[in-house]
C-alpha cells in the first residue's frame, strides 16, 4: 500500500528519478531525495528496526538524525541512520539489531521478560560467583552491541580540508540565514552549515506552505552573495579552542577556523511520555510534518495528535491537509490552548480535548503498530491520568508534541553558561564565551519574525565583536504560552512509557535509580544509561532532567545538565584517521645500514642500527654485538654518529656564553682543542654532556647527546636571548653527518684519506682540526670514549655516505667492522664511562658522578652553580662506581635496576651491566653508598631470582685489561 501523497510544492524528492532497493529481502521503490525511512514509510513499511534492549518494533520517531532504532546494515557498512541518509539504488539493507529479521525477531521475547531486567540488573546480577562472570560477560557483550564490526573493512582515508572565514554560522534555518545575510552585507565572509539536504531549517516542514516564499527569497539572496558559502548535508561536529569547528560531510572533514561563531542550530522536539509511546506509528509532530512536506508521505491514515503546547495544533492541521483522518487533538494542559487554530480545526471536524492525555497506546498484532489509543482526563500538575473514564479510538498513528530542547551541544562545548528559563521551560544561553553568539530557537526565540530578527541581532553583535560598527537589533521577549511543557509525563502502572528510545529507559527506571541512591544527574545517567545511546540524549535528556527534578522535589535548574562532548553525531573513523605525522629521521648513511643488515631501532626521532646482522649471518643479536665490540678492541670499528646534536656558537662572546651555560671554562681554551661540556639544570642536576670544540677565537662547535639535542639547542637559544651577550647559534644537527672510527687500526685507515699526522704525540686526545678527508671539508677529533684510540669525523651530510663507503672499503684489509649502538654501549662500559640520563637520573648531581673536574666553581656564574654550592655543603648520599662480578660467580646474571643490598637494606642500584667478551668478565656501573667508593670495596646485588651476587668496586675496567 502506498502512502505517497500527490505532489507537494515543498517536496525534496525528484519524481522523475524512481528506483528500487532491497530492505529485509523485500524490493522497495523510492525516488531520488528520499531517505531510507521515508522511502520505506511511503511503501507502507512501518517496522524499521528493533530497539536496543527489549527488541521492540520501532518506526519513525523524529526523522531528525536521532531515530537510532532504525539503523541499517548495507554490506560492509553498518549503523546507517535510516532517518536521514539518502537511499540509493544499489542498497541491500537489513535492520541491525535483530535475530532472524526485523518482523520476526527471535529476541523479542526479551520484551516479555523485561520486568526481570530492571535497570542496573547487569551490574548486580552477574558479578558473583566470579567464576561464572566470563560466561555472562560473553552473553551480555553479544546482546549489547548494535551491528557487526567488520574487521576487513577497507581503509578509506578521507581528505582533511581547512577553511577560514570571518563568521561561521551553524544552522541554515531562518535565524542562521538572516544572520548570514546581515554579516555578508557588511563585507565579511560567511560559512553557513546545515546538516539537512536543503537549507531552510524548520521552514522546510513547519509553516512550510505559508513561509515558502519568504524562505525562497532569503535563499535566493544568500545564493547571490559572493561572501556566503552555504554547505548543506554537513554537520558541525564539535567546538575546539579559538573557534575551530570541524565540518563533517560524506566526503570528508573541513576544519573551519572562524573569527566568530553564530550557533543557530535550533531545537529538538521532545516526546511526551506515555505507555507504548514507542510503537511504529507514534511519532513526533515534526516528524509527521517532515514526512508530508519533504517527502510527500502520509504519516498514517487515521490518528490523533497529543500535544502539550500550541505546536500540536499546527501539526494537526497539516495532517488534515495531507488527507489524514485526525480523530482528535488531545491537549495535556489543563487550560488547553487559546490558539486561533482551534477554530480552524473545529471547522474541519477535529475534536479538541483539553486536560486530557493519551493514557496508553494499544498495540496491533505482534506489537508491530498502533491499533487503538486510550484517552483519559489528565492532571498536568500531578502527571496522573484519571482512568475512571477512558475513551478508546481506533487508529494507526499518533503525532506527539511536548516541547523542545535546544541543540546546544556546541554552545556547551564552547563554555557557554546556560540558565533555565521557566517561561520558556528551556535552557537558554546566559553567558556566552567571547566571539560565540546564539540565535533562534537555541536562544529561546520561537516566533517566526523574531527568529529572523534574532539572527540579525546575533550578526550585529558578532560584527561589533569583529570591530565593525553596526547598529544593534532589538528582539522581543517570548510572549504567550510556553513552547515546552514542564512535565509531559503520564504515569502508568504497567510502564513501557519510554523516555529514552535509544536505551529503552522507562519512567520507573529513573525512580528505581534514585531509590538506589543515583539521584544526581551524572550518576543517574551512568546507572540508567539515559542519554548514553547513539543519539546522546537528544530526545531524552530534557525529560530525564524533569523526572529527576520531580523525584528530588527540586527546580529543574538545580538538577543541571550532563556534559556535551564532541562529536555531535557519530563521525566515521575514516574521517578522523589520516596519515601518521610521527616523523623518523634517517642519517646520511641509513641506506648503507639497511643494505648491510642494520637492525634499526628508534633513538629519539632518529633510526639507528643496534647491531648488524647481514644476510647469511647466523649470529644472534648478542653474538653480533660482541663480535662488533671485539673488532673495535682488536682491529677497528666504525659507527654512524650523525644523530649527535651539533651546534655552532659564533660571536665575540662565544666563549663567555659557553661559560655561562656549561659548568667548565672555555675562555682560555686553545683553538684546535675541545673540552667536555657538561650541562646542569638550575637544581644542579646533570642534564647532558658533549664536546665544545674551539675552531676559532669566536667560533665553537658543540656536540650534545642524541636524545637531548633539541632540548639543549632550545636551552641555549633561551640563554642567548636572555644574557645579552654577542653570540649567535646555528643548529647543524641535520646538516652534518658524523662517524667515529675506533680501535688500534683507526689512525692507519684514516691516514689513507688525510694528511693530518695522527700520531698520539702530534694529535693527542682533546685535539680537533678542520681538515679534508677524501677531499671533503670536515672536522676531525681524537676522542677516547669507546676506545683508547678513536677519531670522530664531522662532515656535510651530503658527503656522509660517500666518505663512509670509502672508509669501509679502505678499512677492509684492516678488518674494519661497522658497529651499532649496542656495541657502543658495551664499549663505553669497558672504558668505564657513564652515560648521563642512563646511568644518572633526574636527581643526580655531579658530585655523585665524580664529575668535579668538569666544574669550575670559581666562575662568576653558570647554570646550576648556586645549587651546587648548597649541595656541596651536604653529605653525599650515593656515588656512582664501576664494578666487576667475581670471575667464578654463579647464579642468574643481575640486570639493570637490580638493587644493591647492604645488611638486608636497599643501598643502591645497578645502572648498567654487561658481559664483556674482551675482558671475559661481567662489568657494570652502580649507585652505592659513598663509603663503598674505594676500589676493592665489596657489595651485594640482589638479582631477579632473589639471590645475592657479590661485586667489587674497581677504578675502571680498563685496569682489569692491563692487569690480566
Amino acid at each position: 500500500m502506498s502512502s505517497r501523497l500527490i505532489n507537494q510544492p515543498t517536496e525534496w524528492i525528484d519524481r522523475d528519478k524512481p528506483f528500487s532497493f532491497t530492505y529485509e529481502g523485500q524490493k522497495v521503490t523510492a525516488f531520488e531525495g528520499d531517505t531510507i525511512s521515508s522511502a520505506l514509510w511511503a511503501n507502507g513499511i512501518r517496522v524499521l528496526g528493533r530497539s536496543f534492549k527489549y527488541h521492540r518494533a520501532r518506526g519513525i520517531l523524529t526523522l531528525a538524525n536521532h531515530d537510532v532504532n532504525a539503523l541499517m546494515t548495507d554490506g560492509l557498512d553498518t549503523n546507517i541512520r535510516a532517518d536521514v541518509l539518502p537511499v540509493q539504488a544499489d542498497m541491500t539493507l537489513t535492520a541491525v539489531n535483530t535475530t532472524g529479521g526485523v518482523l520476526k525477531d527471535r529476541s523479542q521475547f526479551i520484551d516479555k521478560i523485561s520486568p526481570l531486567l530492571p535497570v542496573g540488573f547487569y551490574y548486580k546480577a552477574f558479578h558473583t560467583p566470579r567464576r561464572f562472570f566470563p560466561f555472562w560477560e560473553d552473553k551480555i557483550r553479544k546482546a549489547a552491541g548494535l551491528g557487526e564490526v567488520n574487521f576487513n573493512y577497507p581503509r578509506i582515508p578521507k581528505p582533511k580540508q581547512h577553511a577560514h572565514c570571518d563568521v561561521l554560522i551553524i544552522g541554515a534555518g531562518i535565524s542562521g540565514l538572516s544572520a548570514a545575510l546581515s554579516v555578508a552585507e557588511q563585507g565579511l565572509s560567511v560559512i553557513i552549515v546545515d546538516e539537512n539536504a536543503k537549507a531552510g531549517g524548520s521552514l522546510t516542514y513547519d509553516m512550510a506552505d505559508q513561509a515558502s516564499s519568504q524562505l525562497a527569497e532569503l535563499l535566493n539572496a544568500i545564493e547571490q552573495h559572493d561572501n556566503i558559502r552555504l554547505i548543506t548535508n554537513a554537520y558541525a561536529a564539535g567546538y575546539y579552542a579559538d573557534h575551530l569547528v570541524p565540518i563533517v560531510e560524506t566526503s570528508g572533514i573541513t576544519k573551519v577556523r572562524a573569527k566568530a561563531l553564530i550557533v543557530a542550530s535550533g531545537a529538538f522536539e521532545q516526546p511526551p511520555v506515555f505507555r507504548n509511546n514507542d510503537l511504529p506509528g507514534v511519532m513526533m509532530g515534526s516528524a509527521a510534518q517532515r514526512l508530508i512536506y519533504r517527502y510527500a508521505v502520509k504519516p498514517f491514515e487515521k490518528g490523533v495528535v497529543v500535544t502539550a503546547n500550541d505546536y500540536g495544533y499546527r501539526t494537526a492541521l497539516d495532517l488534515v491537509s495531507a488527507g489524514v483522518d485526525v480523530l482528535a487533538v488531545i491537549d495535556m494542559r489543563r487550560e488547553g490552548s487559546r490558539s486561533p487554530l482551534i477554530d480552524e480545526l473545529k471547522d474541519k471536524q477535529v475534536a479538541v480535548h483539553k486536560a486530557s492525555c493519551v493514557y496508553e497506546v494499544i498495540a496491533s498484532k505482534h506489537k508491530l503498530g498502533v491499533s487503538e489509543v486510550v484517552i483519559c482526563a489528565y492532571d498536568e500538575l500531578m502527571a496522573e491520568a484519571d482512568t475512571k473514564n477512558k475513551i478508546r479510538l481506533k487508529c494507526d498513528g499518533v503525532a506527539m508534541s511536548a516541547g523542545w530542547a535546544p541543540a546546544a551541544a556546541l554552545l556547551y562545548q564552547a563554555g557557554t553558561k546556560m540558565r533555565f528559563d521557566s517561561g520558556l521551560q528551556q535552557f537558554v544561553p546566559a553567558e556566552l564565551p567571547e566571539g560565540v553568539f546564539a540565535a533562534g530557537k537555541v536562544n529561546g526565540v520561537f516566533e517566526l519574525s523574531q527568529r529572523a530578527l534574532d539572527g540579525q541581532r546575533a550578526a550585529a553583535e558578532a560584527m561589533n565583536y569583529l570591530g565593525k560598527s553596526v547598529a544593534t537589533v532589538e528582539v522581543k521577549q517570548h510572549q504567550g504560552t510556553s513552547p515546552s511543557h514542564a512535565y509531559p509525563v503520564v504515569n502508568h502502572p504497567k510502564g513501557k512509557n519510554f523516555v529514552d528510545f535509544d536505551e529503552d529507559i522507562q519512567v520507573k527506571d529513573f525512580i528505581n535509580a534514585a531509590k538506589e541512591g543515583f539521584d544526581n544527574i551524572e550518576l543517574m545517567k551512568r546507572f540508567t544509561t539515559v542519554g548514553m545511546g547513539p543519539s546522546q540524549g537528544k530526545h531524552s535528556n530534557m525529560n530525564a532532567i524533569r523526572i529527576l527534578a520531580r523525584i528530588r522535589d527540586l527546580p529543574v535548574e538545580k538538577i543541571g545538565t550532563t556534559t556535551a562532548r564532541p562529536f555531535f553525531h557519530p563521525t566515521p573513523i575514516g574521517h578522523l584517521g589520516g596519515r601518521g605525522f610521527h616523523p623518523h629521521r634517517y642519517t646520511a648513511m641509513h641506506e648503507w645500514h639497511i643494505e648491510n643488515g642494520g637492525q634499526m631501532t628508534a633513538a629519539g626521532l632518529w633510526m639507528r642500527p643496534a647491531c648488524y646482522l647481514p644476510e647469511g649471518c647466523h649470529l644472534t643479536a648478542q653474538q653480533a654485538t660482541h663480535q662488533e665490540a671485539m673488532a673495535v678492541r682488536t682491529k677497528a670499528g666504525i659507527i654512524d654518529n650523525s644523530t649527535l646534536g651539533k651546534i655552532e656558537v659564533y660571536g665575540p662572546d662565544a666563549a663567555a656564553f659557553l661559560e655561562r651555560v656549561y659548568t667548565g671554562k672555555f675562555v682560555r681554551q686553545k683553538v684546535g682543542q675541545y673540552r667536555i661540556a657538561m650541562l646542569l639544570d638550575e637544581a644542579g642536576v646533570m642534564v647532558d654532556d658533549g664536546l665544545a670544540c674551539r675552531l676559532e677565537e669566536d667560533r665553537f662547535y658543540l656536540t650534545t647527546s642524541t636524545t637531548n639535542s633539541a632540548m639543549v639547542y632550545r636551552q641555549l637559544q633561551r640563554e642567548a636571548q636572555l644574557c645579552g651577550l654577542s653570540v649567535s647559534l646555528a643548529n647543524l644537527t641535520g646538516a652534518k653527518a658524523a662517524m667515529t672510527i675506533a680501535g688500534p687500526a683507526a689512525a692507519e685507515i684514516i691516514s689513507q684519506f688525510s694528511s693530518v699526522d695522527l700520531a698520539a704525540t702530534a694529535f693527542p686526545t682533546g685535539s680537533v682540526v678542520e681538515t679534508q678527508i677524501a677531499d671533503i671539508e670536515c672536522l676531525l677529533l681524537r676522542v677516547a670514549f669507546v676506545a683508547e684510540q678513536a677519531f670522530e669525523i664531522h662532515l656535510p651530510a651530503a658527503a656522509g655516505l660517500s666518505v663512509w663507503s670509502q672508509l669501509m672499503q679502505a678499512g677492509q684489509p684492516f678488518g674494519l667492522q661497522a658497529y651499532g649502538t649496542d656495541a657502543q654501549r658495551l664499549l663505553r662500559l669497558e672504558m668505564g664511562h657513564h652515560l648521563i640520563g642512563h646511568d644518572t637520573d633526574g636527581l643526580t648531581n655531579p658530585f655523585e658522578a665524580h664529575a668535579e673536574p668538569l666544574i669550575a666553581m670559581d666562575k662568576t656564574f653558570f647554570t646550576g652553580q648556586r645549587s651546587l654550592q648548597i649541595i656541596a655543603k651536604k653529605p653525599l648520599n650515593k656515588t656512582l662506581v664501576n664494578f666487576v662480578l667475581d670471575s667464578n660467580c654463579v647464579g642468574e646474571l643481575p640486570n639493570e635496576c637490580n638493587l644493591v643490598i647492604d645488611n638486608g637494606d636497599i643501598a643502591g642500584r645497578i645502572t648498567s651491566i654487561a658481559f664483556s667478551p674482551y675482558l671475559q668478565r661481567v662489568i657494570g656501573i652502580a649507585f652505592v653508598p659513598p663509603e663503598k667508593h674505594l676500589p676493592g670495596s665489596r657489595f651485594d646485588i640482589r638479582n631477579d631470582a632473589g639471590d645475592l651476587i657479590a661485586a667489587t668496586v674497581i677504578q675502571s675496567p680498563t685496569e682489569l685489561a692491563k692487569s690480566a
Partner: protein
Amino acid sequence: MKLLQCPVNGIRPLSEFSYGGEFRTMPDPDSCTDQQWAAYVHYRSGAPGYKKEWWYHMPSGTWFIAERNTITDKVSRTYLLPKMEVAV
C-alpha cells in the same frame, strides 16, 4: 586547536609551540640565602589563575613570554622579554 601569537611570527597554531615553564625571576645568586634559592629552584605555584609563562616557537626558535589565565586558558598578551635581543 588553539592559536597563539608569537611576537615575531604572528598568530600560529599551538602545534608550532612548546611550553617552557612558568616564568620566574631569578634571585641574585650572590646575595640570596640558600632557602631563597631553593624556593626559586623547586617551588612552583600550581594555583590556577593569571600566569607568566615561557613559550617557544619551534620553527623560528623564538622564546617569549605569554601572560595566560590558566582558568580560562585565555592568553592576554605575548611579548619578548625587554632585554631580549633576538639572535640573528
